[in-house]
């Protein structure tokens, strides 16, 4: 073997490391494993715990049954115990383990007896091992006890060996994942001795059954099972280590096992056998059921049984697949080949041999097919019926509702069939009278039978066939009007007619039912497609939710709701779509549990099965983002895997759509923030430059004056002082503009409007600018009939000042600046147009659209570039507009358009006028 082959597989190592990491946060599970009650598991567990406690660990007893043994009770002293939770059930007070108290207490190590125990109804989980899972997930180490007969995969063997069917089972998965398994072993004579001494307490079983159980051969067998299972575990660990280091040396078999699941009672046994085979071969296994048209008409109980079997397989680690077709064996074979299956496990055919030979059986057909796949046939057992019953009871306890009977209006079909046959008879009579031979008359009856088969189903078709034969005999076969047959050849005709009738009936029925099945599948696919399409084209979380709810209601035809976390984290249905049906479950916190753990719960599951609805988490890429609540009824059974798959697929779609929407929002927000950031940076860089320049001049000039003021002549001193003064002015303007801009952007600037004559504003603006316009002759021409304006005088004054300063800055000295105003009527009112025009070089056309941008400065201009932006913002805040343009005769013009809104209040007339 080359070195390369010897090197450990990096993928495998990675998977291993990841698994280790996952386990890092988890508590460790130690299982004290024994062959039977009384070997001393609880005792050993307590001893172990006491050792840990004295070593300083925080050990707490969660639930331990001393079974009335004094030695065990003695071990309990000194250890902190969590009080039991008392539950009332059927008039009895039951003591149960209080998970919530344990989680709240959060010890390092918790002792919980009897891992396979079934919790009383009303508990959070159906099984204690699920409670333990919660504890492990919270990082608490747990020690527990288990008997070999409680293992799911060994359940039927144990039943066979001991004759006792154990009802409390633990999925093998939980056992396999336990971190440590300590076998508590006792030789059989020793155990029997203890039994005699009365040191063994058996709860919940009838005395006689107990006697049955504790017979020597049983105990020997159980001990062997326990030992072998422990050895298996050790072996598995060794293998894993070896595989990590040297993949080539321990290549797992590329086998794949397929198990055929039916609704028969023996299916449980077949599934467990399949699992054992898969384990032995270290192969994946698939549990397959074929939905034939026949199965569509199964009774509710049978459908439930089938669903339960599939669930069992899933629980034992199988991948479950539902195929549909008419020929079971063919479908299975085709699928097996497509999945590269190497072993098929099927239940032995039931029923008498002759029937099997006549009708054929699945297992026989599978065996006949050649092709390199081994077929294992599992024999039925005597207790299969009990097993099936137990499963059905469990299913019923979980609140599953099987499909109801599809009852057709039976009587009516038969009557119609009778009519058709009668009609055929009449037609035949007519033809006979017309002189046609009997062979043609048979055809007429056949036609009738085919018609009945196509329209009314198998039962009426069979009846029609028989009736047709009889009528044909009676009416048309000589001797007529008797049931006697003169020519025995006619018997053959009858037989063939009957056979054809039945065949046609069967065929048409099958075709029709396949069509129904195909329609059903199509409906499901279409539901998915529609949902997907609607969701992808919808934006907005609320809209998405409403669309999704609508689609779900269409698909399932039952009450459905989607709960999303609100501002404080509590789950609630979307506004506008209240869901009264979940109110009853609110107190259990089932929705919150689902949201937190990302697993379904509620009706039809193992967790909180007493709820009124099924709760499925909406899991997106980062975890659950919501919970879908589905109220189930008879026609919707989420126990059936394909329904469950549909629910989960839809939930996934909705989760992804919601996530996509949320991400879009985030992206949008990020964009906006980036934009704001950009603006802030622009402002910062602009401001820092604009601040630095005047400050540099001021500090430089003033510094020079201080240092060498006396040495300078008066003219230079004056010039420096003038420049200090100018730059200070510039700074003042800059600060003013920045403050205004900030106030405008933050919305803090609210115009305080009062009715004012424009001339006042112009007058005060001109006075304010005064000195800066000294080089520019200003002329004013305000129309005489200008209406008053409802404006904020201070703000509009500022606008005019900005425009005037702008004009002064950008035009050569001695060029005039003109202010004009006129009233322009428009639809619905009047506008006042104020223009500030100059005779300078004007605004270059390419720059014209950008003139009002923030921080935009004309070439070679001083100033912040904010003045025009502020002016426009102010004017727009008044409902008006500010535009810039070039005059035909040269120069630029800035046009303020202010709408006149309403009328100024009436003024008390001057009595002395």
């Amino acid at each position, binding site marked *: 073997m080359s070195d390369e082959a010897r090197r450990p597989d990096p993928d495998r190592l990675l998977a291993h490391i990841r698994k280790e990491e996952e386990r890092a946060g988890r508590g460790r599970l130690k299982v004290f494993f024994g062959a039977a009650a009384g070997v001393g598991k609880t005792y050993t567990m307590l001893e172990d715990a006491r050792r840990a406690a004295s070593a300083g660990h925080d050990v707490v007893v969660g639930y331990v049954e001393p079974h009335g043994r004094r030695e065990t009770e003695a071990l309990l002293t000194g250890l902190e115990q969590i009080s039991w939770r008392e539950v009332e059930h059927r008039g009895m007070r039951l003591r149960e383990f209080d998970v919530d108290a344990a989680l709240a207490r959060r010890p390092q190590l918790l002792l919980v007896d009897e891992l396979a125990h079934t919790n009383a109804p009303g508990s959070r989980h159906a099984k204690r091992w699920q409670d333990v899972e919660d504890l492990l997930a919270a990082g608490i180490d747990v020690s527990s006890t288990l008997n070999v007969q409680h293992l799911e995969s060994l359940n039927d063997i144990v039943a066979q060996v001991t004759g006792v069917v154990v009802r409390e089972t633990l999925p093998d998965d939980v056992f396999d994942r336990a971190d440590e398994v300590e076998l508590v072993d006792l030789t059989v004579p020793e155990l029997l001795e203890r039994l005699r001494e009365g040191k063994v307490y058996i709860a919940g079983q009838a005395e006689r059954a107990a006697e049955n159980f504790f017979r020597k051969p049983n105990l020997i067998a159980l001990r062997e099972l326990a030992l072998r299972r422990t050895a298996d575990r050790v072996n598995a660990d060794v293998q894993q280590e070896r595989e990590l280091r040297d993949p080539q040396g321990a290549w797992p078999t590329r086998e794949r096992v397929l198990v055929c699941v039916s609704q028969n009672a023996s299916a449980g046994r077949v599934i467990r056998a399949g699992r054992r085979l898969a384990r032995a071969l270290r192969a994946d296994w698939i549990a397959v059921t074929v939905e034939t048209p026949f199965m569509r008409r199964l009774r509710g109980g049978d459908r439930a049984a089938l669903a339960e079997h599939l669930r069992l397989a899933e629980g034992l680690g199988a991948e479950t697949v539902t195929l549909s077709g008419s020929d079971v064996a063919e479908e299975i074979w085709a699928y097996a080949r497509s999945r590269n299956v190497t072993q098929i496990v099927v239940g032995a055919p039931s029923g008498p041999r002759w029937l099997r030979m006549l009708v054929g059986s699945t297992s026989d057909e599978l065996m006949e097919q050649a092709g390199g796949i081994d077929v294992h046939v599992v024999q039925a057992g005597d207790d299969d019926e009990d097993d099936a019953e137990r499963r059905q009871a469990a299913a019923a306890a979980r609140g599953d509702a099987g499909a109801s009977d599809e009852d057709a209006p039976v009587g009516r079909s038969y009557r119609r069939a009778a009519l058709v046959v009668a009609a055929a008879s009449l037609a035949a009579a007519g033809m006979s009278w017309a002189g046609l031979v009997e062979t043609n008359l048979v055809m007429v009856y056949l036609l009738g039978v085919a018609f009945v088969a196509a329209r009314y189903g198998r039962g009426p078709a069979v009846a029609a066939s028989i009736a047709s034969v009889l009528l044909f005999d009676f009416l048309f076969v000589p001797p007529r009007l008797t049931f006697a047959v003169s020519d025995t050849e006619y018997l053959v005709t009858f037989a063939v007619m009957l056979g054809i009738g039945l065949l046609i009936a069967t065929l048409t029925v099958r075709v029709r039912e396949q069509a129904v099945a195909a329609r059903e599948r199509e409906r499901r696919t279409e539901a998915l497609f529609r949902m997907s399409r609607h969701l992808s084209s919808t934006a907005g979380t609320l809209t998405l939710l409403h669309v999704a709810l609508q689609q779900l209601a269409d698909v399932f035809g039952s009450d459905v709701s989607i709960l999303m976390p609100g501002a404080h984290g509590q789950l609630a249905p979307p506004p506008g779509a209240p869901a009264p049906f979940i109110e009853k479950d609110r107190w259990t916190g089932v929705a919150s549990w689902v949201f937190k753990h990302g697993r379904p719960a509620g009706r039809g599951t193992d967790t909180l099965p007493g709820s009124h609805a099924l709760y499925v988490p909406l899991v997106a890429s980062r975890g659950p983002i919501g919970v879908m609540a589905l109220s189930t009824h008879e026609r919707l059974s989420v126990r059936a895997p394909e329904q469950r798959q549909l629910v989960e697929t839809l939930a996934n779609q909705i989760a992804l759509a919601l996530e996509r929407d949320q991400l879009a929002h985030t992206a949008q927000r990020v964009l906006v923030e980036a934009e704001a950031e950009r603006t802030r940076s622009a402002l910062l860089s602009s401001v820092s430059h604009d601040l630095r320049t005047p400050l540099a001049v001021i500090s430089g000039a003033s510094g020079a004056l201080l240092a060498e003021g006396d040495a300078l002549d008066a003219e230079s001193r004056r010039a420096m002082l003038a420049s200090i003064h100018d730059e200070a002015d510039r700074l003042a303007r800059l600060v003013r503009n920045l403050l205004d801009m900030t106030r405008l952007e933050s919305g803090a600037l609210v115009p305080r409007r009062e009715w004012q*004559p424009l*001339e*006042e504003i112009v007058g005060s603006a001109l*006075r304010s600018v005064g000195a800066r316009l000294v080089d520019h002759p200003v002329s*004013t021409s305000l129309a005489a009939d200008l209406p008053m304006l409802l404006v904020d005088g*201070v703000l509009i004054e500022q606008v005019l000042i900005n425009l005037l300063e702008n004009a002064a800055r950008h035009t050569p000295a001695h060029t005039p600046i003109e202010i004009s105003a006129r009233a322009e009527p428009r639809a619905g009112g009047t506008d006042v147009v104020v223009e500030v025009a100059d005779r300078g070089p004007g605004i270059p056309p390419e720059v014209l659209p950008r003139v009002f941008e923030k921080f935009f400065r004309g070439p070679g201009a001083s100033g912040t570039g904010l003045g025009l932006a502020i002016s426009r913002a102010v004017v727009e805040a008044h409902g008006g507009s500010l535009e810039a343009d070039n005059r035909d005769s040269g120069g630029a013009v800035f046009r303020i358009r202010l709408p006149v809104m309403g009328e100024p209040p009436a003024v008390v007339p001057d009595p002395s006028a």
Partner: protein
Amino acid sequence: MSAAPGEPGVPPPTVLVIEDEAPIRAFLRTSLAGHGYRVVEAARGEDGLVHATTHVPDVVILDLGLPDIDGLVVTRRLREWSAAPIIVLSARGQEQDKVAALDAGADDYLTKPFSVPELLARLRVALRHAARTGGDERGSVVSVGELLLDLGTRRVTLAGAELRLTNLEYKLLVALARHPGRVLTHAQLLREVWGPGSESQVHTLRVFMSQLRHKLEADPARPRYLLTEQGVGYRFAAE
């Protein structure tokens, strides 16, 4: 009583500067002292009020943005016992503060940053008003530029030509002209012309001012005599 500085034999007028910013105080001190004023400084409102009682200034320059007491409160408290003119310094954009101070008794205002000539002009106006102890108005004449206002005969002439004013217009003009160079708030003018209780009818005031302006001014958009102080009130040109 002091008059404007520079008159021989008259003690220099005392200016009380109540301003918390040291650089501004320094600059005021230098400028005012350089123009013959005696300067008393206070950095806080409380100190300023104390100094007002001890030094009895002729004019008070009060910053509205004081750290300890609101400038408005200082104005009111000063006005309780002193008739000395108060000029308030305010930041830009605080029109309401200015108006409130003026209504509470301040005489004029300056917006920071201001120039020294402006300050000195305001001071001169303020002192001149204080000197005229509201005495006999009959026979007094106001003459600014080409406008002549004879309070005794109630005649107004502009460049020699008589103007016909209605009663209200005349009252308004007189209200302004009696305090040339000094700002009068809308409220003050309304109270004086239309009587107490009419302080809120700013619109009426504006309408009448507009009429007056059209009668008096050559270019109402560039008034010579009737100056607008946006957001505050009106001012009759001093010269």
